[in-house]
């Protein structure tokens, strides 16, 4: 009585085929991913990776040149630069991830509500976002930390807040088009509440662009943290921060002990670069039009 069953034979490539394919197609993205993975691993396992204790001072090793004991040299207090950079990765990662999660989370919630509900709520959120976005990220972060005081928690907040409008806008535009999709109408036709539809049907479909956005933002959050710390308004002592390492040494020691400036600077550049590469590749790879 029921009509015939069709055989579906999805030909899915094996995991390794996928990986090799992606590697060949997005070599830069892979490079970026390698950089970021190294960064994350350093951050997670800092205690094991770092050769020396980043906090212990050693007057005799003050301003030591790069050598066997201090691979990247030592700073003015004899602390090992390499170890400080590795532990600094931990701070940078904590701030970046914390700020990104907070900012993206809040931004996504606002964008979802704004796009789905529309009306006055949307109008207000839009205008507020626009005002916020007209201020440079760093300026806003500065204002926030200056008023809240420098601490790890405040740095995270200060970097998270400027992220909110950007994320909200992207999510909102996604939601606007998702809202019109037939599967949303079908859910309405079954009598589902608007709230449930927004959370169960619309939100999961905004995750992909959200992830890409977050990855792309990672680089700029790290840079912002470095900038804030450089200005003394970010992460305070004793946490090692790349930005502060720069500010401590840039003016006085740039000529006498250039390794104090080069290596933290290089670390910052490399991570931002890596996150940008990875973010770009992710965006291209997830773009449905690029699919075979």
């Amino acid at each position, binding site marked *: 009585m029921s009509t*015939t069953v069709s055989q579906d034979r999805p030909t899915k490539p094996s995991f390794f085929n996928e990986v090799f394919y992606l590697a060949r197609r997005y070599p830069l993205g892979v490079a970026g991913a390698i950089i970021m993975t190294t960064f994350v691993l350093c951050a997670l396992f800092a205690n094991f990776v770092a050769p020396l204790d980043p906090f212990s001072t050693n007057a005799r090793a003050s301003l030591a040149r790069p050598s066997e004991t201090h691979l990247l040299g030592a700073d003015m207090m004899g602390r090992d630069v390499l170890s400080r950079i590795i532990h600094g990765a931990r701070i940078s990662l904590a701030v970046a991830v914390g700020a990104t999660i907070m900012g993206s989370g809040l931004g996504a919630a606002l964008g979802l509500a704004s796009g789905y509900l529309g009306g006055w709520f949307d109008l207000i959120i839009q205008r507020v976002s626009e005002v916020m976005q007209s201020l440079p990220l760093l300026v806003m972060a500065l204002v926030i930390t200056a008023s809240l005081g420098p601490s790890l928690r405040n740095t995270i907040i200060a970097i998270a807040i400027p992220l909110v409008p950007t994320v909200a806008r992207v999510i909102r535009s996604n939601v606007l088009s998702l809202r019109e999709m037939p599967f949303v109408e079908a859910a309405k036709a079954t009598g589902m509440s608007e709230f449930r539809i927004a959370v169960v049907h619309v939100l999961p479909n905004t995750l992909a662009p959200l992830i890409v956005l977050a990855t792309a933002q990672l680089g700029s959050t790290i840079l912002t943290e470095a900038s804030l710390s450089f200005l003394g308004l970010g992460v305070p002592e004793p946490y090692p921060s790349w930005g502060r390492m720069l500010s401590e040494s840039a003016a006085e020691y740039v000529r006498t002990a250039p390794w104090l400036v080069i290596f933290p600077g290089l670390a910052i550049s490399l991570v931002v670069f890596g996150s940008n590469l990875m973010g770009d590749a992710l965006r291209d790879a997830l773009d449905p039009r690029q699919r075979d």
Partner: protein
Amino acid sequence: MAPVLEVSGLSTVFHTRRGLVRAVQDVSFTVNAGETLAIVGESGCGKTITALSLLRLVPMPPGEITSGSVKVDGTDLLKLSDSEMREMRGSKIAMIFQEPMTALNPLLTVGKQIQEMVVLHDKCSQEVARKRAVEMLHHVRIPEPERRSREYPHQLSGGMRQRAMIAMALACRPKVLVADEPTTALDVTIQAQILDLIGDLQREFGTAVVLITHDLGVVAETAKRVCVMYAGRKVEEAPVEEIFGRPLHPYMQGLMNSIPRVGSARGLDVAPDERLQEISGIVPPLNDLPPGCAFEPRCTRADARCKTQRPELAMKAPDHIAACWQA
């Protein structure tokens, strides 16, 4: 009459991460001047890639035309250099697509786009080309052609855009027009107008038309000969009355039986609860084709040989070839 378009053993593949996709395999056909050949099939049969291969518009990578020849008036297009091929496109062979909005440049007026074509191929002045463009728009029955030529694609309706695309394609009187589902996106009444138009222009200019479609009604009304494709290969070819009157390949038979008919126009009394005949199953993936006949899994008449041995095209009746062991 010597054929204007001779396609012989055309094969096109795609290199993808899911393996080698054999989109078109060993396809051959010929079209005479002033005639229409319809290539029929459903999605995944390779008809669109065939059309794109004729004009060498297949993206190369990941695509590759691995063998065959496409001769227009004796010249093999596949052997030409890129610049020589560009000269041929528009002047000897042209194409119109399903979705005119994406095929027309949204930033140029309709007249300008036709004008460009004319200047490129006929090497005349802009003014002469402009006049030709307006004339062409008139030819495709767009009212107020002078005014319309100064409008942008988005200002025209779907039917008019399709006419504009036809005007652009035929502006330099090519010998061959490849039409890829030109009316599928149009309303039925507009479709009828466009098909009439193509037919009239064909009669006037003597163009050979290759019409790609999945709509058997369109085929019956416009084509002289019909080619049926399945899973990248040609499986049947015959003149239109012959193929509709006596389809030999089980796929073509299945297609004809699965269409509901507008019965009353034929004077038939269609029983209200009559079931449409189905073709069970789905088209096989082009990167994982079975060793024997590609249609075998869905065929009601298949036997053991069909499963292991792929049938070749053979003449089963006068001027009627099919690739089937059971035909």
